């Protein structure tokens, strides 16, 4: 012990301490890099928020002030006064809620079929389902438009949510089917012996067991619905029917009123459009990450 102590301190000093110092400097550098990157990623949001609180004369002032002289929270109510913004929120919430519910119910319904029943053609249809994930939307967009046009659904919200009730999308089906395969069959077997019908088993046994995967489907479907632009663009014509994503571009093209800049209002509208996504993400980060990782596993 004593002998070791005699040699060890020097050895430690010469070998270990530079490397720990180096490791510390190194992790310091990496920390700095991550901090700088965070600022770069967050800055556009910060600038948007600041712009949304500025007075009209500050918009084109040079050099542009970073902070508004007096924060103009009134810009937010002004957005509602100058455009059917409230209507757009209602439309968007309606479409997103109905299509998310539809996606949850129908994709779990179909996934249950793929995961628990045996029938001819199952694997073929499943492969076909995976194949549709590769298909660019542009190929089906035009005939779909003609179809919905024939239904008289142009300039209504139906094209935005009805498809979600018929399977809820290939990816959601895939995700739930994988999840259901990992759920042990004992519970549904037991329910079957107790005389429960498959519909009852799907609703009362399978659905509760798949809560985590369903949460993932719900958040992804919410974000997709909230961000969807091309469908509203194609189907909706009158401003009262717009969703938020489409409404923002309408706002963008509003002629400037009496030469007054409207950028602060446009930014306020953008903030209100972005905010729900951010809140949802912060509340349900885990489910986002799981859903994305899940999509990566199949590759």
């Amino acid at each position, binding site marked *: 012990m004593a002998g070791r102590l005699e040699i060890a301190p020097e050895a430690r000093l010469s070998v270990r301490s530079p490397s720990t110092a180096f490791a510390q400097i190194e992790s310091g550098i990496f920390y700095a890099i991550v901090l700088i990157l965070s600022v770069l990623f967050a800055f*556009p949001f910060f600038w948007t928020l600041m712009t949304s609180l500025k007075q009209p004369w500050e918009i084109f002032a*040079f050099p*542009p002030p970073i902070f508004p002289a007096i924060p103009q929270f009134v810009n937010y109510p002004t957005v509602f006064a100058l455009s059917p913004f409230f209507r757009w929120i209602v439309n968007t919430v309606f479409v997103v809620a109905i299509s998310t519910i539809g996606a949850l119910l*129908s994709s779990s319904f179909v996934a249950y079929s793929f995961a628990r029943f045996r029938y001819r053609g199952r694997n073929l249809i499943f492969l076909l389902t995976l194949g549709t994930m590769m298909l660019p939307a542009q190929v089906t967009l035009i005939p779909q438009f003609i179809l919905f046009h024939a239904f008289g659904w142009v300039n209504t919200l139906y094209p935005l949510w009805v498809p979600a009730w*018929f399977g809820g999308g290939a990816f959601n089906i895939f995700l739930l089917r994988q999840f259901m395969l990992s759920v042990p069959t004992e519970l549904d077997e037991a329910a079957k012996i107790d005389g429960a019908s498959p519909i009852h088993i799907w609703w009362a046994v399978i659905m509760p067991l798949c809560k985590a995967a369903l949460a993932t489907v719900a958040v992804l479907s919410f974000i997709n619905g909230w961000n969807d632009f091309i469908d509203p663009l194609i189907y909706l014509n009158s401003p009262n029917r717009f969703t938020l994503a489409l409404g*923002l571009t309408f706002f963008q093209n509003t002629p400037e009123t009496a030469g007054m800049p409207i950028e602060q209002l446009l930014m306020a509208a953008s903030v209100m*459009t972005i905010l729900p996504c951010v809140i949802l993400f912060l509340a349900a980060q885990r489910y986002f990450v799981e859903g994305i990782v899940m999509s990566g596993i199949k590759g």
Partner: protein
Amino acid sequence: MATAAMKPSPARKSPALLARIVGASSPLETADALWGYFFLLPWLIGLIVFTVGPLIGSILLSLTKYDVLSPPKFIGLTNYTTAFFGDPLFWPSLARTFEYSVVVVPLGLIGSLMLAMLLNRGMKGTNTFRAIFFLPSLTPTVALALLWTWLFHPTVGPINVGLRYLGIQGPGWLTSQHWALPALILITLWSTWGGSTMIIFLAGLQGVPDALLDAAEIDGAGRWSKFRNVTLPMISPTILFNLVLGVIGALKVFTLAFVATNGGPSYATWFLALHIYNEAFKYFRMGYGSSLAWIFALILFAFTFVQMTLSRRWVYYAGSEQ
């Protein structure tokens, strides 16, 4: 129970034939199979009405001249020859799309991988940083386009103001014919670097066994050598996945360009997807639009196919015999 009564009952009529059709070997299995079809029904309808039907429809439409108002007129392959030889915007739009993708895909992948590796060091606050990096990818593309249009404002946008302090006269960005495409590329990179690509890389990196890295280190491998010879092969399936999705995503670029530049100035950002949209929904040339959409789809399939074929040479599947 009311639901039990809904159970498809034709099974009793001719069990043998029905069992053969559904691929079952006993009445119990037949009932099971019928329930399977029952649960499949919504998707079967959805698949036929919203995907397979339109798919066939668009092939047929691409052989016609159709403006919604008058009935479609069969014109053979004229739409395709028009695209290749008679449309002054087709080749330029394809070229713009490729120029955009050739930059966005590799820089996007490398950036996402580097961010993932930074986060994989397990430093304090990793979750917070991951959230900050991820937020741009959550932002609705329309809002993204609007806020970057404002950031890129030629005179009062913070980017050009910042450049001015450095003594650089910033370009007109989205309003400049030369800088609009680079500007869109910058926006895309900012919004996708920390997105799902990074999350998937992060999951891939976490799947690299420490034992392998330690073994390499004991063998005297340096940092680069460990990365090149252990990490990269181990995450190569993840790279392939992100590459395939990245290429598809880049070639499909639409909303950003539609909102930020609307294809301009002077068609500098007139991407193929934008061209399809304008032909089909602005000028209501549905037949021609469909033929463009199919050319577009075939390009996507070709790229994916080539990547999957080439991947056999560089993707390593640990512990798989395939």
